[in-house]
């Protein structure tokens, strides 16, 4: 399989180089660019394969001493069973429950924190500005609802019953 891959890569390299030179000789620049790209890809692939093969040779060339390896393995400390407490029978039998409770609390807290962060990002300055514009349509009129003195006095002016003047006075106009 490796031999086939190497042969295919080499054939691609040679064919692409040949077609590129022929295209250049014929002044066919687009074809030359295309075959040059294929040549570059094949070249990079083959170079990567060569480097990997050399690295593989380097790793296999450095053979370890079996006796040294055996000594190292024999003198290795026994691995600690960090979950031995799960196997021990206790009076309350709450070990696993407490573990799941704590872990579940951590997970739920993490999810809540994530939801809070995401929710806090949904209110952007642009959104707030848009909301303020929408609320301005139903907001109280500037100056409040109380009619000012000028408007009150204007109610008694002769001619205040005129519809146009009432429109001018708007808030203080008699209905």
């Amino acid at each position, binding site marked *: 399989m490796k031999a086939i891959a190497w042969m295919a890569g080499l054939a691609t390299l040679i064919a692409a180089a040949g077609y590129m*030179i022929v295209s*250049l*000789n*014929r*002044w*066919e*620049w*687009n*074809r030359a660019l*295309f075959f040059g790209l294929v040549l570059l890809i094949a070249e990079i692939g083959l170079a990567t394969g060569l480097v990997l093969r050399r690295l593989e040779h380097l790793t296999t060339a450095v053979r370890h001493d079996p006796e040294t390896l055996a000594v190292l393995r024999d003198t290795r400390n026994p691995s600690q069973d960090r979950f031995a407490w799960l196997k021990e029978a206790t009076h309350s039998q709450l070990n696993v429950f407490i573990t799941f409770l704590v872990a579940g609390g951590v997970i739920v807290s993490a999810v809540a924190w994530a939801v809070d962060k995401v929710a806090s990002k949904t209110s952007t300055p642009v959104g707030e500005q848009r909301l303020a514009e929408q609320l301005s349509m139903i907001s109280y009129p500037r100056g409040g609802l109380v009619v000012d003195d000028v408007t009150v006095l204007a109610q008694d002016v002769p001619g205040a019953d005129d519809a146009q003047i009432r429109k001018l006075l708007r808030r203080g106009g008699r209905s």
Partner: protein
Amino acid sequence: MTPARIALGTIGVVLGVVAVLALRSATMATHQPVDLDSKLELVVAARTHGGESGQTLDEMVHALLLTCRLRVNADLDGAMQSEGNGLFRGTLSPSLDASNRREFRGCLEDWAIEHLQVDVISLTEPDQ
């Protein structure tokens, strides 16, 4: 380093230099003056495959010639005439020197327009 390796390396370097010089001379434009009244007859065979449905072969050949004539010092003397079976004939004026002919032929046969393949049948001086 063994003498054989040195010899092989030397041969490789020489071959590389020769190849580069040959390619340089093959792609170098050397222009010659041409008679302004001269003409050049062009016959091409065009075919299209998988092109857009709204495009005709005549349009594609016309577009290719408009593109390629910008690379040389000649204009089409009239429009390209279709002779059927994908053959087109036209006249360039003034004529082209050897470099421009190679460049023009290369442009026409290049992958300049998608789905269009053009082969230059002849690019010669018309019979007087």
